[in-house]
């Protein structure tokens, strides 16, 4: 495909086309999170971003991860954020400015971080790129197998971590 300024752009395949849509959705929603003046709208845009990331996981053939993303981030964490906004009176009242006096520093850091990520992505060889991934039920099964064999210690420690989170949650919300 020839663009006006003589730039050559390859015609995307159908899958690439859908991927571009999903990626754009994620990016636009992410932008909306930071520029929206209404905090609740920001939270909703964040939810949309989470969905977009789940979509990217589907393209990576990581179905279980995609579903976990929807279940945990969209179903629980975004809900928690929405609840948290409603708990905070000053934030329930509509318009807040998306800018504070740190916007300059933070945008600089964001930019540097982006450059770093980009460099990192270009430096990585990506050995599996273009190959067919064994995406199957077997993959979720393999995950379960790893949980109880190779990573069994990490798995049990994770249980303890969740226990700590639980205790923390109860401590935070109930001061008895």
């Amino acid at each position: 495909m020839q663009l006006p300024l003589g730039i050559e752009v390859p015609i995307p395949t159908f899958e690439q086309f859908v991927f571009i849509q999903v990626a754009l959705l994620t990016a636009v929603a992410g932008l909306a999170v930071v520029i929206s003046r209404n905090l609740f709208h920001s939270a909703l845009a964040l939810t949309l971003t989470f969905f977009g990331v789940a979509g990217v996981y589907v393209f990576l053939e990581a179905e279980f991860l995609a579903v976990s993303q929807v279940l945990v981030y969209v179903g629980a964490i975004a809900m928690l954020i929405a609840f948290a906004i409603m708990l905070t009176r000053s934030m329930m009242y509509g318009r807040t400015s998306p800018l504070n006096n740190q916007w300059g520093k933070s945008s600089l850091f964001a930019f540097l971080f982006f450059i770093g990520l980009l460099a990192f992505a270009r430096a990585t060889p990506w050995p599996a790129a273009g190959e067919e991934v064994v995406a199957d039920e077997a993959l979720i099964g393999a995950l379960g197998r790893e949980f109880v064999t190779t990573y069994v210690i990490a798995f049990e420690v994770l249980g303890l971590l969740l226990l700590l989170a639980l205790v923390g949650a109860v401590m935070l919300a109930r001061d008895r």
Partner: protein
Amino acid sequence: MDWLQLLVFPAIRALILIFVLLTGFAYLTWYERKLLARFQVRYGPNRAGKFGLLQPAADAVKAFFKEEIIPNHVDKPVYLLAPALALVPALIIWAVIPIAKGTPAIADVNIGFLWILAVAGIESYGIILAGWSSNNNYSLLGALRSSAQMVSYELPLGLFLVSILMLAGSFSLVDLVEGSRQWWEWIWLWLAFPFFFICILAETNRSPFDLPETENELVAGFQTEYGGMKFALFFIAEYVNMISTSAIMATLFFGGWKGPFAEQYIWLGPVYLLIKVLILLFLFIWVRASIGRPRYDQLMKFCWQFMLPLGLVYVSISAVLAVFLK
């Protein structure tokens, strides 16, 4: 290019599914009104058409020609988005349910079980957005109650699903129905059914767990500021959810499309599924006609202090059964 295969056929299939579900919704309202009338020794709708069969069509026309009111104080984009967001999960949860031998409604993905769980997880969004955007005390309280109730009952629901998955050993609902089960498995499964059904009642906000919309204290809960077609969309979402969850229960507990001769004659599959769904829907309406509403604290306590421990016990026993008896 096989875009016909890739886009057009799935689209036609999806349109048929949506059409069937919406028609199902329309006649479910008729079915419910007729049944409730019978329970209360009344006639129910009987003016529009024979046996009142045209009543749903009349209601649909009315909803479309209602005045659109967007109150002054609402958050407009979110207010308009919420009804659509409530409806979409109710429709798409059907995608993985098998309707005949080897035939899922839309696609047999590897994550059938997880699809159901994930879609159930986003179902509360429509309601919480409606409650927040309406800027009405009743709406906000109704939405909060509703979302807290839905997420709470999702946990025992997830635990029961894990147990069923453990015994079936496959994430695909198509395989689940077609695989064979031993007699003790059926009995163990049916032991869980009443509790699963209770969770479903809470998830779909159906009576007796319709606390988000208690008419005598919260007017209509999150729907208070909605009228016309936007209200109808919440209504459709609730009823399509009833149909979808009935189909899920039929698939998980009662063999889905299976029945005599369904293997030979493919078309019998959907018929059997429909019969099972109708029986389960009768159960929903029967419960509504018979059981009074609990208090909200009782509802939450029942979930966290009874259903969740029960789910944990059920998972552990299922695990032992799956290891030693399968």
